[in-house]
């Protein structure tokens, strides 16, 4: 009995101390990690979907509340005027969520392109949604009828990867809904 108690107490103590230490460390590193993720994961995607801007979209990012969720929006400004914006949404893929950075042209109200940020799909099959041929279909696309061909839209799915294609398309559709909700808030420009 005494041995049992000792085992329980020692193990609980060790686990407790480990837990507290890690929680503290996590809190300290969280802002730094967020910064790193922005620079190394989102920056390349933003650069691929936005163009012709003269600001730093990452530095000028702002948070918006849309339908009860927080969206971090990266703006593309030219001479101080908002010409485009990008933000990340995600859709359900085959191997977890697919993160998609979706870019919008504010004046023309079209997509400027999509960039994949998080991808855990099968290499050679689902992972091909990150490839040029698939993603370029969204460049300059209107905000309507973004859907796979078999559902009546005009996006060609990656052969053999319907789930992954669906995931990206649903992420883009979600982004369009958010964009439409954001439009009103952005009428006054970006400041």
């Amino acid at each position: 009995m005494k041995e049992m108690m000792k085992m329980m107490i020692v193990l609980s103590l060790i686990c407790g101390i480990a837990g507290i230490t890690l929680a503290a460390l996590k809190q300290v590193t969280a802002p730094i990690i967020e910064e790193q993720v922005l620079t190394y994961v989102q920056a390349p995607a933003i650069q691929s979907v936005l163009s012709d801007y003269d600001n730093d979209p990452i530095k000028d990012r702002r948070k918006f509340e849309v339908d009860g969720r927080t969206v971090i929006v990266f703006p593309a400004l030219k001479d101080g005027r908002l010409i485009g914006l990008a933000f990340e949404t995600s859709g359900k893929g085959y191997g977890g969520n697919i993160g998609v950075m979706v870019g919008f042209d504010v004046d023309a109200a079209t997509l400027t392109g999509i960039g994949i940020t998080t991808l855990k799909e099968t290499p050679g099959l689902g992972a091909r949604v990150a490839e040029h041929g698939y993603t370029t279909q969204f460049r300059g696309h209107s905000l309507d009828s973004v859907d796979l061909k078999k559902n009546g839209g005009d996006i060609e799915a990656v052969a053999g990867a319907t789930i992954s294609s669906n995931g990206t398309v649903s992420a883009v559709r979600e982004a369009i809904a958010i964009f439409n909700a954001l439009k009103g808030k952005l009428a006054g420009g970006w400041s």
Partner: protein
Amino acid sequence: MNRLWKEFSKGLWKDLPPFKLVLGLCPVLAVTNTANNGLGMGMAVVFVLTLSNLMVSLLRKIIPAKVRIACFIVVAASLVVAVELLMQAFAYPLYQQLGIFVPLIVVNCIILGRAEAFASKNPPLLSMADGLGMGLGFTMSLTFLGALRELLGTGMVFGVNVAWEGFQPIGIMVKAPGAFVSLGVLLAIMTFVENVRRKRRGLAAVQGPTHDCGSCGGCGQKNC
């Protein structure tokens, strides 16, 4: 002092973890496609191994024997999570490269092996020396293997081009099969060197694993 050096230096050649003990092969095979990755992984292991040896050694008198493995794992896992967080915060590209293999340091048998075989029976200073030596040996091996594969596979070492003009890179060396091929060749060379040394001293050659009929049932070999 003498003892300290002995425990430290054994990890550098005599018990060199991947090549002599043939332990911790998962990262050895998986992340050594470049010298840089090997070095980064090795440094993470040095950090975890040294500190886990220290912690286990400090706690060795209060850890009850029956739950010692659980305690060792908690210590190792916490240190690995710490490394993962620090790596994400200060070396994100390396973290992207190593990916899933960082959390997998927890189940690297070197960590648990040294805790069980050494740190749980020895005082803190010796245990740290042991962890540091083993970790550095591991780092050396990984960096060497990484450099070798990177050189043969891309003509570069640490991302610097060192190949002569007209060098044809062997692409397979930086892919998974290259890991097995180069590890196998290295192990063969190490055994050969060891055998030459033994012969000079008049000892018998290193014995490979022998076919043991006692532990297998019906493997189909005729002499069983």
